């Protein structure tokens, strides 16, 4: 392990963070839209996400992508990927609508805490009910089975230092020589090198190890002298698809009649209903859109990131996406996207700084910090509660 921060890895980490963050953003949109309209934290959103990952898995199985299935190759899968995406979106959308209709709508007249407890209950019911029925991290992720986009897109930022290349070659040649000497010694003595305790044996072993170290150092110096960004094709496509879906959502919310109604309901629930907007229909529609975005995120997460599937997979993703929504200003659509990207970047930065065991905690630290300093979030405005 190299101590300190490796600056040459930073651009790559930032890029990875953005790609992760795009998924967080996609899930965060669902939280923020529902909060905007109903002022309710939809705790079950993470479980909708979970159902989306499993839908993708089951569709891929139905299409023949399970272990040992004959005749299916990765090359034939783009159409299947699209099918998985659409299926996940539809299933999640319908699930979201059903949850709203049967669990949240009856609670709408009650205190907000009651709806919140219902949301927690639905979330737990889906987690533990799912654990009864769903297979836990089935062998080989869908990533390996379906994803046709192998390999990386490498974007060179700075060429490697050519003069260092020579030193790498030299060091590698020396390493080989030393290794050869060690090998010969082992052959001569007929003992494995670890048990060769004579002076000479120790010296040869030490020399070999030192040469290997020098060669490794030279190589890493050579690699670090250049800089390039690696984008796995699958994740690149995922990122573009996410941007596309966000664009579609923006169009839907800003430029259609339904979108305008949605914004009106978010602005003032009661007045909107007095103005002749069918509020129930808009709420249903909001849940449909928000949940299907979570479904899209889930499918891409399962397919391109290879997340291990359990019925609790939605908890971490859901909570982090919620933090993203709060960070951007809950109820604010551009805010959710910004928050998602920031959370993704923050997580990869924590890993980059050497605190990978604290990766899951950073989202909560950010959350508490935001709530203490700017409770309205980055793009939101804290509303004063009127009596």
């Amino acid at each position, binding site marked *: 392990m190299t101590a300190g921060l490796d600056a040459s890895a930073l651009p790559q980490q930032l890029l990875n963070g953005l790609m992760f963050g795009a998924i967080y953003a996609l899930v965060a949109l669902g939280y923020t839209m529902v909060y905007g309209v109903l002022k*309710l*934290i939809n705790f079950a959103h993470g479980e909708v996400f979970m159902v989306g990952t499993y839908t993708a898995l089951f569709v891929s199985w139905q299409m023949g992508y399970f272990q040992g299935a004959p005749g299916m190759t990765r090359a034939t899968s783009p159409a299947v990927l699209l099918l998985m995406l659409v299926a996940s979106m539809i299933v999640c959308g319908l699930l979201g609508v059903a949850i709203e209709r*049967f*669990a949240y709508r*009856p*609670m709408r007249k*009650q*205190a*907000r*805490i*009651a709806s*919140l*407890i*219902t949301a*927690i*209950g*639905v*979330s*737990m*019911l889906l*987690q*533990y*009910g799912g*654990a*009864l*029925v769903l*297979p836990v991290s089935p062998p080989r992720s869908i990533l390996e089975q379906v994803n046709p986009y192998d390999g990386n897109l490498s974007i060179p930022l700075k060429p490697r230092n050519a003069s260092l290349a020579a030193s790498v070659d030299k060091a590698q040649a020396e390493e080989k020589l030393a290794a050869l000497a060690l090998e010969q010694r082992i052959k001569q003595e007929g003992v494995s090198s670890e048990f060769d305790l004579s002076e000479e044996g120790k010296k040869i072993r030490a020399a070999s190890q030192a040469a290997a170290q020098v060669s490794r150092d030279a190589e890493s110096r050579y690699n670090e002298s250049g800089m390039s960004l690696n984008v796995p094709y699958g994740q690149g496509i995922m990122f573009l698809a996410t941007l596309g879906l966000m664009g579609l959502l923006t169009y839907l919310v800003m430029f259609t009649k339904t979108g305008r109604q949605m914004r009106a309901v978010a602005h003032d629930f009661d007045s909107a209903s007095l103005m002749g907007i069918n509020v129930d229909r808009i709420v249903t529609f909001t849940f449909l859109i928000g949940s299907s975005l979570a479904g899209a995120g889930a499918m891409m997460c399962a397919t391109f990131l290879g997340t291990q599937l359990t019925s609790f997979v939605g*908890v971490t993703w859901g*909570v982090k996406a*919620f*933090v993203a929504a*709060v960070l951007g200003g809950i109820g604010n659509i551009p805010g959710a996207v910004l928050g998602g990207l920031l959370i993704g970047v923050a997580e990869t930065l924590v890993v980059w700084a050497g605190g990978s*065991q*604290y990766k*899951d*905690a950073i989202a*909560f*630290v950010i*959350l*508490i910090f935001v*709530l*203490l300093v700017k*409770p309205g979030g980055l793009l939101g405005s804290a509303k004063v*509660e009127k*009596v």
Partner: protein
Amino acid sequence: MKFWAVRFGSIGLAVLVSFGIGMIAQGSSGTVSRLLALAGLYVTLAVSLNLINGITGQFSIGHAAFYQVGSYTAAFLASILLSRGVISNLGTPIPWVLVAVATSLVTAGIAGLFIGLPSLRLRGDYLAIVTLGFGEILRIVIQNTPQLGGSYGINSPKAFVVPYVWMLTFLCVGVCRNLLQTAHGLSFLSVREDEVASSAMGVNVTRVKVAAFVIGSAFAGAAGALLTFNEGFINVNSFTMDVSFIILTMVVLGGTGSVTGSIVAALTLFILPEVLRDAPAMPLNAVLGTLAGIALLVGTIRLAMDHKGLGRSIWMPKTYIGIGIAVAGGIVVSVLANCLPALANRTIPSAELRMVIFSAVLVIMMLLRPQGIFGVRELGLKSFFRRANA
């Protein structure tokens, strides 16, 4: 004179009952003794969370975090004492247990202060998330602290703590009950009912909220310390989000604000899984069918409530149709589940149903009776007689 007689009499009675339970525990097997201790701990946890959620109307869903603070404080203290040779591996003497409990009470109270302060700025749902987040941060930090045993856990010498567990329970219940009968308690209730109005009436909302957090979490911390000495070994898995949700379910089921409700619900929900533990494995399709049937039944009752209002209308003939639909739906689902090759003929151990039952109870309770079984009422001899006289 009568005042003091009642006070000292009830304190004496509580101590006697605690030691009585202790003697029962000592006379019975290790399992029963452990269950008796855990039951007391859960009652303490539920009642102390009820102080925050039910009586003061704040919304904390991370109560396990304070439980964890107390538990790890005690374990850490025990490990220091052990390394100094003050206590031996064989067991912790009771005076040291009490010292550890007091320390845990203080540290968890400080943690409560730490969480209570932000609650001044945050409304219900945000506060919920902060308490949840605090628990998660704590878990991750402890997992990465070798002094606290990391993800493996930490050992501490055992002690026989059943009587002290129940004394703590009686103390916690007593504090909450007495609080509700004083002017201080009224200010707690007024904050629950309307923050703005109560501050206009001169209630120091800040102080009340923080006080609720500190008292509630201090009790949870003391419970955690006793858990440490009862189990002899703790790790972070004893304090996951699930534990918080279980405690929350107990409070919600009993009626947010009703101390006796929390006690009854905590005991019921604690005993239920223990009964399930010994039950035979159940066929999966039957479980799914039952779940679907319950869902349909709740749905139809809810519809009846919406259309006819509360009260006797639930038992109108339509309800029987609803029950019929529910039974039919359940059977259909279980038959369908048996047709799927992945689900057919599978059985699941009853113990795994624990959390499913908890969450189903939570949702059903909210849909049919959001105020909990007892609502804000207390169950007691007085209310019993009043009902009879009326």
